[in-house]
């Protein structure tokens, strides 16, 4: 860091600094992809496809970020997503239910997990990791109890909803045959963007949101400043649960099937996205916009890896872990440098 730049950087908050890093990394990566991978990444639809495929992850990551900002963690979100997909699939297909109720089911399941886990973490003061690890195993196990075999949903109303494409005007491109193809996003993307906006506002402009930061920054101090720390933690887990419910349904809407192996590793992707997006594991620092770009960065790099010929499934896992490791180190280095600069 140069000196003139350094003094400017000093006055920016940790959250905004990490957010800037995230956004810069994303654009560099995307531009790099455009230059080296060419075509595929040049079309706007490439970006929209990333969004389509990751709408659910964006929502899950928002919940994860909120919990992580309060200094906790929730690794049950992947399992909850699988459970929701399976429950909704069974309800729609085998019980012939309607779509609106299935949305309600999804949210209720998420809410249930949030309630129980939040209570155990906040009021019984059990380590969030143990609680949500058990939550994850419970959700995965329940998924197979509900139904063991993966199957596609053929409920008409649902399929119609699943195939709804929202055209993005002016972003279309010409395909190989010379026809103009409109760019589109799925409904899930709209939901995801709404969630991002709402959660951003909650974190930025409500007392509750600021309490999340205070509790994560220093829960002892937060208590002294007159914040109800237990309730704040509880609400964070509750919100994460509800978002897992919404994200679970969006995931289901995208894949259109129920399977016990759905969303495997989603918790890890969500944690990685949050961390890449500038959320600190230690709590108190993070931003929903950053998380949004975190998801995009993560999937962009996955796309780069797979289009570079390394498309075997195992590369995905390794890439995610490597990115996570890298950003953890970057964070600790940046923070160490800042600390040295500010404490004299």
């Amino acid at each position, binding site marked *: 860091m140069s000196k003139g730049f350094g003094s400017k950087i000093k006055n920016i*908050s940790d959250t905004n600094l990490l957010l800037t890093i995230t956004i810069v990394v994303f654009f560099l990566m995307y531009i790099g992809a455009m230059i080296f991978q060419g075509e595929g990444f040049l079309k706007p639809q490439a970006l929209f496809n990333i969004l389509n495929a990751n709408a659910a992850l964006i929502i899950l990551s928002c919940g994860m970020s909120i919990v992580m900002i309060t200094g906790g963690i929730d690794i049950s979100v992947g399992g909850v997503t699988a459970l929701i997909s399976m429950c909704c699939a069974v309800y729609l297909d085998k019980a012939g239910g309607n779509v609106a109720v299935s949305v309600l089911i999804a949210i209720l399941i998420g809410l249930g997990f949030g309630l129980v886990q939040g209570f155990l973490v906040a009021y019984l003061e059990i380590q969030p990791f143990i609680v949500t690890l058990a939550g994850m195993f419970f959700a995965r196990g329940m998924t197979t109890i509900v139904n063991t075999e993966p199957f596609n949903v053929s409920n008409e109303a649902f399929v119609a909803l699943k195939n709804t494409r929202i055209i993005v005007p002016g972003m279309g491109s010409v395909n190989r045959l010379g026809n103009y193809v409109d760019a589109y996003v799925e409904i899930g993307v709209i939901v995801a963007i709404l969630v991002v906006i709402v959660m951003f506002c909650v974190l930025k402009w409500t007392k509750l949101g600021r309490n999340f930061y*205070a509790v994560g920054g220093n829960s002892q101090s937060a208590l002294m400043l007159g914040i109800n720390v237990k309730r704040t933690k509880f609400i964070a887990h509750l919100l994460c649960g509800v978002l897992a419910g919404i994200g679970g349904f969006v995931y289901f809407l995208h894949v259109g099937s129920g399977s016990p192996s759905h969303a495997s590793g989603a918790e890890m992707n969500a944690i990685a996205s949050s961390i890449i997006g500038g959320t600190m594991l230690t709590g108190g620092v993070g931003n929903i916009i950053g998380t949004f770009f975190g998801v995009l960065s993560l999937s962009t790099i996955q796309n780069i890896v797979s289009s570079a010929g390394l498309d075997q499934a195992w590369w995905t896992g390794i890439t995610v872990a490597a990115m996570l490791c890298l950003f953890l180190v970057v964070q600790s280095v940046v923070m160490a440098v800042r600390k040295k600069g500010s404490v*004299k």
Partner: protein
Amino acid sequence: MEDNAVLQMRNIHKSFPGVKALSGVDFTLRKGEIHALMGENGAGKSTLIKVLTGVYTKDEGHIYLDGHEKEVQVRSPQEAQKLGISPVYQEITLCPNLSVAENMYIGRTPGAVQNWRKMNKDADKLLKSLDIPAKATQQLSTCSLAVQQMIAIARAVDTDCKVLILDEPTSSLDEQEVEKLFKLMRDLRGRGVGIIFVTHFLDQVYEVCDRITVMRDGCLVGEYEIKDLPRVQLVSKMLGKELDDLSDIQGEYKSYERKEGELPVFEVEQLYSNAGIKPFDFHIDKGEVNGFTGLLGSGRSECVRAIFGADRVLGGKVKKNGKPIKISKPIDAMRQGIGYLPEDRKRDGIVGDLSVRDNIILAQQVLRGFLKPYSRAEADKIADEYIKLLNIKTASADTPIKSLSGGNQQKVILARWLLTHPEYLILDEPTRGIDVGTKVDIQKLVLKLASEGMSVTFISSEMDEMLRTCSRLIVMRDRRVVGELTGSDLNQTSIMSTIAGGDK
């Protein structure tokens, strides 16, 4: 009732299981004064403050605010704040990741929506009026510690506080920062706020305070105008020794003299660590007992920690029998034959869940190395031997050390170091918080060890003990060595005047 009193505490009693922490303490704070609350460890000042701020509930007594006849009840910290009693603690209780303005207003403004613009405007106004060099939008962790401390004060002041309690606010600040803080305090005094100032820096008391209340052993010693209480008097009141009867207790010790041609066992030059002490010189001879003395926080523990390698040593030389050695971590010191009984028994000494036996053999086991554990029979034998030797009262060697009384825990730690047969043993407050009988036992033991050729550094807050055991005292004030006393200088009067410094 005095007219301009903002706070009166009358006949406050508080006991904890087995300890009487406060007995019949009175305290009066007047409008627009800075009032120092002084006392050594265990004097009861922090208990008094916790009673006042609602952390503890008092057993007996009355608290009056603003000269009202009706007494007030303070049941929780929140209630205290509502009544206008605001504490600011040594460790900053703000959130480092939030902005300055948020730290000033979070948790105490109504409504669910955060109005950033109004908050920042209010904050900037307040910061400006108090002359605090910070911007509302700045992240707190980018401010210096002094500024953070001031922001905590600003928050307290803004809650319409009548009684501002500053609990050792200056202990992690440098001189310029302290100056800024004092300016703020004087400014607030001018506005009629009553400030209770707890500190262990004498210079600071005489710089800003108007009155001093001295406490000792849970009792009130007295309240004095600052001009009526010279420093030596203050020190003697804190330590509980009247100047008149000081001369009587001259030492029963034998003065120590180094034999011809013998080098000091350990010698340090210009040693200093990251714990904030100024570089110091020190040496100890074979069979000598010496001590570091000074008020709490004067840096006496930090010195011995630096010798033992417990803090990160930043510079200086260490010599053993004249040969230079390197000590960068405790195991180095242990290998050179140094043992260290730490000041904070609970945090740094005992390994709570382990048995008495394991606690005794721990240090020696580390010295012997990973592959040479004592067999169960050997460990039992050693444990029994030391339990008997030091008369440790425990149900068995298997009992977890945390269920022993403080004195017996201390003896176990002592046994741990005796087992390593050190050439040089550092005892940092070995007698704190333990019963009289054990105290005497430990003093006797120290003298016995020294007569057998062991070198001992003994640190204690109680001057009698130091005088009885040490043949040389290194006096510290404000984290630097200010004097060394031997022979006929070893009496309470000269110690106190050295500690107090300045006027005599």
